[in-house]
């Protein structure tokens, strides 16, 4: 005992630098290292994210038509215009419908895929890749394939060909809003594009569940299958599920590409970003109104995200384990 104590006192831990030892300049400084690694990212963030956001807020208080350096201050006029514009308000309804379709279906499909892939004994990597690959596809490319090939309104569109086998007439999937077949096209495109990504998140979470839990449950008489899934797997995935739902909701708010390319210039099926593009930016070049709409949308996304986090318990997942 005494020998050990003496040796500890005599020779300090090597991790601690001796005051006499010369420092290796700034490279030894944690502060320097922080700025070295985070600086470029922070500069990019400031230039490409925060500056445009601030500029947008500034623009929203000006009459900014055909210019992004306006000089006519209009106060909250742009906000009033956007909030009383029933098309913009209607776009929020469209978003709600879209989110109601896409969030639960993507959650269920990606979780289902993750459970299937996780159970595989062989070719797991192959199937994981197959389901993940659509994530790498451009939304624009997928939208064009969906529009021109699978859901084309003419007789040689894939879906119409299948319907013709059963004697059903051609459907103009994306043209006629009555009935609103366009939702089938939009939701299926997005499901294909994003389920693989969320499957990977669920897969990682599934592999983090300790095997002992299932063993203990089995000893206690729990039947494998639905009972185990409901009482062990699902609660263990709570943190991941909450994060997935949050990400899906934000992604739904940001929907643009597939709506823009599948439903060109309609007045229905316009989520907020498409509505902002048509009504205020894009061809109309009304950057003041567009910025006001963007600010309203940002505030809304923040509020919904915070509320959702509060109700679904985002961040409480670790405690619940």
């Amino acid at each position, binding site marked *: 005992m005494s020998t050990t104590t003496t040796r500890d006192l005599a020779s300090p831990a090597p991790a601690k630098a001796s005051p006499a030892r010369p420092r290796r300049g700034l490279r030894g400084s944690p502060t320097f290292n922080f700025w070295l690694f985070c600086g470029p990212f922070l500069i990019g963030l400031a230039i490409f994210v925060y500056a445009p956001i601030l500029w947008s807020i500034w623009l929203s208080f000006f009459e900014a038509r055909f210019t992004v350096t306006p000089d006519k201050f209009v106060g909250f006029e742009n906000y009033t215009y956007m909030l009383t514009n029933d098309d913009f308000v209607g776009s929020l309804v469209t978003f709600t419908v879209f989110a109601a379709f896409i969030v639960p279906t993507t959650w269920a499909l990606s979780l289902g895929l993750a459970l299937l892939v996780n159970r595989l004994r062989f070719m797991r990597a192959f199937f994981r890749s197959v389901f993940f690959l659509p994530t790498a596809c451009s939304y624009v490319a997928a939208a064009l394939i969906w529009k021109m090939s699978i859901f084309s309104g003419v007789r040689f569109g894939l879906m119409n060909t299948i319907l013709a086998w059963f004697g059903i007439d051609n459907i103009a999937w994306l043209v006629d809003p009555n009935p609103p077949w366009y939702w089938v096209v939009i939701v299926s495109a997005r499901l294909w594009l994003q389920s693989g990504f969320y499957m990977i998140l669920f897969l990682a979470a599934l592999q983090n569940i300790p095997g002992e839990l299932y063993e203990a449950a089995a000893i206690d008489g729990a039947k494998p299958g639905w009972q185990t899934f409901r009482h062990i797997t699902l609660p263990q995935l709570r943190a991941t599920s909450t994060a997935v739902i949050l990400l899906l909701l934000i992604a739904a708010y940001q929907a643009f590409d597939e709506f823009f390319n599948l439903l060109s210039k309609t*007045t229905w099926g316009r989520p907020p970003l498409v509505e902002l593009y048509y009504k205020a930016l894009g061809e109309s070049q009304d950057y003041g109104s567009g910025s006001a709409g963007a600010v309203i949308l940002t505030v809304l996304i923040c509020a919904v995200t915070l509320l959702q986090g509060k109700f679904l318990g985002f961040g409480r997942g670790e405690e619940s384990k």
Partner: protein
Amino acid sequence: MSNSNWSRRSLFRAAAGMAAAGTLAACGGNNGRSGGSGSGVGLTQFFHAYGEAGTEQAIKKYAKAYDKADVTTQWITSADFESKLFATLLTKNAPDLFEFHPQIQMVKSGQVADLTDIIEPVKSDFNPADIKSHTVDGKIYGVRMIDDPQFFFYRKSMLEKAKVQVPTTLDELMEAAAKLTTGKVKGLYMGDDLHSVIDTMIWSAGADHLNEKNEIAYHTPGVIEGIKKMRKLFTSGHLLLGAPTASWDPSSLNQGLCAIQFCGMWAMPAIQQALGDDWGVFPFPKTIDSGKQSVYNGGWSMFVNAKGKNVDAAKEYVKWLWIDQKKYQEEWATSFGFHIPPRTSIAQTATKLKSGNAAEGVKLFNEFGHFDNIGWTQAMRTSLEDVFANSVRKDMDPEAALDKADAAVNRELKKLFG
């Protein structure tokens, strides 16, 4: 051996040095303006992607032939053209020249340069309607490059087989579409959104977009009746909907997907090649009994970016190409798709427009044509597109849809004219 001197640190230094040198070289050489035959001033021009083969090469050939500046062309996909142009005009990368349609807000916001001095000497040789559609307060902004009349193209054999006469009223067009629809062929195609026939439907109802005082002139009983008829047509099952190509592309007619298609004169060579002589053209029929058949004379004009760095050089190039080089202008108008040259002297000698359906197209242009109104802006255009979307495709009450459009158009008019 020398390899012993290559420490890991040396290798990193060498790699960093090479990367830096490469970056500097890239900064110096790749300015995006090389490749022209001129020297000194560099000009950039934006063109939307024309559908006809050879057009991009032609525009680049003209640019290369100009020896007073290096002219670089950006050829932009049609669907993205407007948004890319408007967004770029706000930046330092804005083009010096660009093609677009005459719109007053571009003049009022100082985006386009006054070209009166280069057009004035040859003003009398231009189609007066084209000059009028580019004039604000006596100044001319933009040089018309081509006029594009738009009307219906039809398959003669299909109409003969169905015993259908060429329609002269909207009711007759609806009846024709019904008779021409078979299991595999739809009677009529006007694009999925029907936007290409909005203007002609209004004119054929005896109305207009704006009156002389720049007040709303489209909100009439005739237009409301027309919208109701268009709704009936849309739900009839006789319209081709969901076609793979837009209405500006004649593929639907050429491939036998429809018997009648609304399109532009530019498509004539492609239709001739696909269908031989089995086709004809007719104007948009009368919407109501008191209306008149109409043809939309679209087209493209060349504008100079007034906020560009090389306004004078850009004007000089516009003058050289679109005013002095008559051979290029004729080639541009008649060698790819068919367009009508806005210069009377060229239009009169353009042999390809002298016979057959091309001559018929020119006749319809002269007899029924309506030109762009410079006061009718993109935002106003969008408002009427919304009327068609809401009333024709979604069954909203036309009166209510037009009221909504009125509010949006009046907001625009107030901002533009006070």
